[in-house]
């Protein structure tokens, strides 16, 4: 698509390497997010992402209200979890989550009231530390998929030279449209979130990176900035090419600022912090209302769902209930994914709870999944041409086979972000992402032995 010509929208600072020409399938972009009916019970895992697991703060039989803390810990890299419905704690037991792991979870039977906890009140913020404490208390983690606790990401040192906030609204995964809807339906929340982050953390630049296949999202944000004096010159919108994986952190930073995050380094090492657009929007709402992260929007699509929708559901709702709300399956699903088809996790079971970082449930029909026979590598070089990290996946595959630690390190296997562009492009249907993971595991194991 030719780049958009909207006044006030910037062109990207740099063009990344490779990527995959993935079909967008943005079928649900015209459907506003609908709130799902309150489920009879929710199952809230105490550990939902990277970081220390929370300890339960409630007992079986306790009455809980929406927004009440039910799990927390003193560890820094963590975020508390809150009750997402009001009702009675029925059980605290290990449950299976989407990646197949068993984690402890609080099961709450809903009383249908959705009564708000007395603890829910807008946070009072007078300093940077207050702000970071509030972000932690909100339970916010990266809502785009990674699920890294946001307050940890924002707690960079003042002398670290971090000057740029980038809001990730690329939404490069096929099918998913909730970020797009957030920009159309809640532009003020997004800008409020950005404004607070800029105010308390002292960013000099703020960008929102959006792919060029969402022209109405640019317009929505521009109109809101135009209409409100307080949002004038707050952020710059960047029109990104709609190519996968534009929303990958390192790729986005490069596109927005021209800065390259070196291997093994973090965005803050090049002065940037990246936040998902839904995280920013949640932050904007939280600072106003004080209501912690108890529900989230997600896209339910993928071809096998009868009535694809953008749904807002309480965290801990079972996938099976969310799918049922979307009309159930119209044909037998081949795979059910947490996330999009490029990086999503295939779940063995749809009786798993919705987590903070699940931005989509993608139910792929058999007819939509192309299964290529796995053949020998013909060295066509498509994986090399498509790698946004400029690696040679076919070489890494060979080194992984040989368990050649030096070779894997030389080939920079740890730099792979598992975006799947190589495996997407491979004409021989080789499971390259699996080999990348194998290669990383071999390197880690060798490192642990030393």
């Amino acid at each position, binding site marked *: 698509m030719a780049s958009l010509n909207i006044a006030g929208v910037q062109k990207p600072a740099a063009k990344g*390497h490779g990527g995959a*020409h*993935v*079909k967008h399938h943005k079928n649900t972009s015209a459907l506003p997010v609908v709130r799902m009916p309150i489920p009879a019970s929710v199952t809230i895992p105490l550990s939902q992402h990277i970081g220390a697991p929370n300890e339960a703060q409630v007992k079986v039989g306790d009455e809980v209200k929406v927004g009440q803390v039910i799990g927390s810990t003193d560890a820094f890299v963590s975020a508390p979890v809150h009750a997402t419905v009001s009702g009675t704690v029925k059980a605290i037991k290990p449950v299976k989550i989407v990646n*197949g792991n068993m984690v402890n979870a609080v099961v709450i039977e809903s009383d249908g009231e959705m009564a708000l906890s007395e603890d829910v009140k807008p946070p009072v913020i007078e300093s940077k530390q207050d702000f970071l404490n509030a972000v932690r208390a909100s339970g916010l983690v990266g809502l785009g998929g990674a699920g890294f606790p946001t307050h940890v990401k924002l707690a960079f040192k003042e002398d670290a030279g971090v000057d740029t906030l980038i809001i990730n609204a690329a939404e490069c995964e096929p099918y998913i449209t909730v970020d797009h809807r957030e920009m159309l339906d809640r532009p003020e929340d997004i800008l409020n979130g950005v404004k607070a982050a800029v105010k308390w953390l002292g960013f000099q630049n703020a960008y929102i990176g959006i792919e060029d296949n969402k022209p109405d999202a640019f317009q929505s944000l521009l109109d809101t900035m135009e209409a409100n004096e307080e949002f004038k010159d707050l952020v710059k919108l960047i029109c990104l090419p709609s190519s996968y994986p534009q929303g990958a952190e390192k790729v986005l930073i*490069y596109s927005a600022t021209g800065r*390259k*995050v*070196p*291997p093994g*380094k973090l965005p803050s090492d090049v002065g940037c912090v990246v936040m998902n657009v839904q995280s920013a929007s949640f932050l904007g709402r939280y600072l106003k209302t004080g209501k912690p992260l108890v529900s989230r929007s997600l896209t339910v699509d993928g071809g096998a769902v009868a009535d694809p929708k953008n749904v807002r559901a309480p965290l801990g709702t079972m996938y099976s209930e969310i799918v049922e709300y979307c009309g159930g399956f119209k044909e*037998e*699903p*081949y*795979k*059910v*994914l947490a996330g999009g*088809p*490029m*990086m*999503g*996790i*295939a*779940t*063995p*079971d*749809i*009786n798993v709870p919705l987590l903070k970082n699940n931005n989509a449930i*993608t139910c*792929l029909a058999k007819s939509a*999944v*192309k299964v*290529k026979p796995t*053949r*020998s*590598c*013909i*060295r*066509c*070089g*498509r994986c090399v041409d498509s790698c*946004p*990290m*400029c*690696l*040679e996946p*076919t070489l890494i595959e060979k080194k992984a086979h040989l368990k050649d630690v030096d070779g894997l390190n030389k080939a*920079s296997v740890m*730099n792979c972000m*598992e975006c*799947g562009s190589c*495996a*997407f*492009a*491979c*004409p*021989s*249907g080789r499971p390259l*992402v*699996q080999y990348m993971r194998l290669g990383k595991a071999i390197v880690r194991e060798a490192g642990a032995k030393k």
Partner: protein
Amino acid sequence: MIDMKKLTVSASPHQKSADTTTGIMLDVIIALAPAGIAAVLVFGLRALAVILVSVASCVLAEFLSRKAMKKENTISDLSAVVTGLLLAYNLPSNLPFWEVVLGAVIAIVVIKQMFGGIGQNFINPALGARVILMSAFPSRMSAGAFAGLNKSGWDVDALTGATPMGLVGLDGVKEGAPTLSELFFGNVSGCMGEVSAAALLIGGIYLMVRRVISPILPVTYIATVAIFCTFAQGFDMYAVAYELLGGGLFLGAIFMATDYTTSPITKKGKLIAGIFCGVVTCVIRLWGSLPEGVSFSIILMNVFVPYFEDWTAPTPFGMIKEKKAKKSKEKEEAKA
């Protein structure tokens, strides 16, 4: 409710591109078709017979050798068909059939399957077979059937003559050589596939448009030959055009040197390989005792591929090369 036992669990990504090995090979076969048609028009039905024998024996050789090795059969990927076509295009149309079959067996069994099958051979199978046939049967292999004279000709000993590349040397183009337009449109003697530069070019453009091959290697190869010959021939542009259009340059540059398995995987590697092939081709043609140097230059390039790739390995995103890092450090220190 659906049967949960039927959900598939696998590593991401869950979507794949439409490209397949078979599809790529089919594209190459389509791209080779114009040159095949040109060969049949120029050399007659004997050419068609050589093509069919070559393809059939390559496929059969692949089938039998996989069977003998008790390995999964790979004839459905169509790579044996491509090898068969390329081998036929590298032979004169009046070669005895048993020699064609021998070439196919060398290409598929010795060069391809004995090294591990598709993707594993270190030189181009068709070119390897051609070179071995050329050493074994030099007189028959280097003499192309004269075009136009024996169109009906099933007679192997009919009139034969040297390839046009014997008629051009450092002293320019000799008398009796075909005209440039004959070279371009294909009314000359020589190997079957190399007679029409136009037909090869159509196939090459098709492959580039379909993004099966990158233009880097063929363009640098042909450009290197053009530039090298311009100087070597003392700006005799007629002789330069002759060097470009006669012989196997287009066939080699477009279809043989770009073979995935035996050419560099990196862009810079492709560039180096193109220049390398161009220089070696010209040196053999102009100063060597052989009239043609395309096959040997490509085989020599094939052998160097691991080095070209190692030298041109891409720099991982965000990685600063050691030399550069040193330089910038020195600069900073100098500033301080």
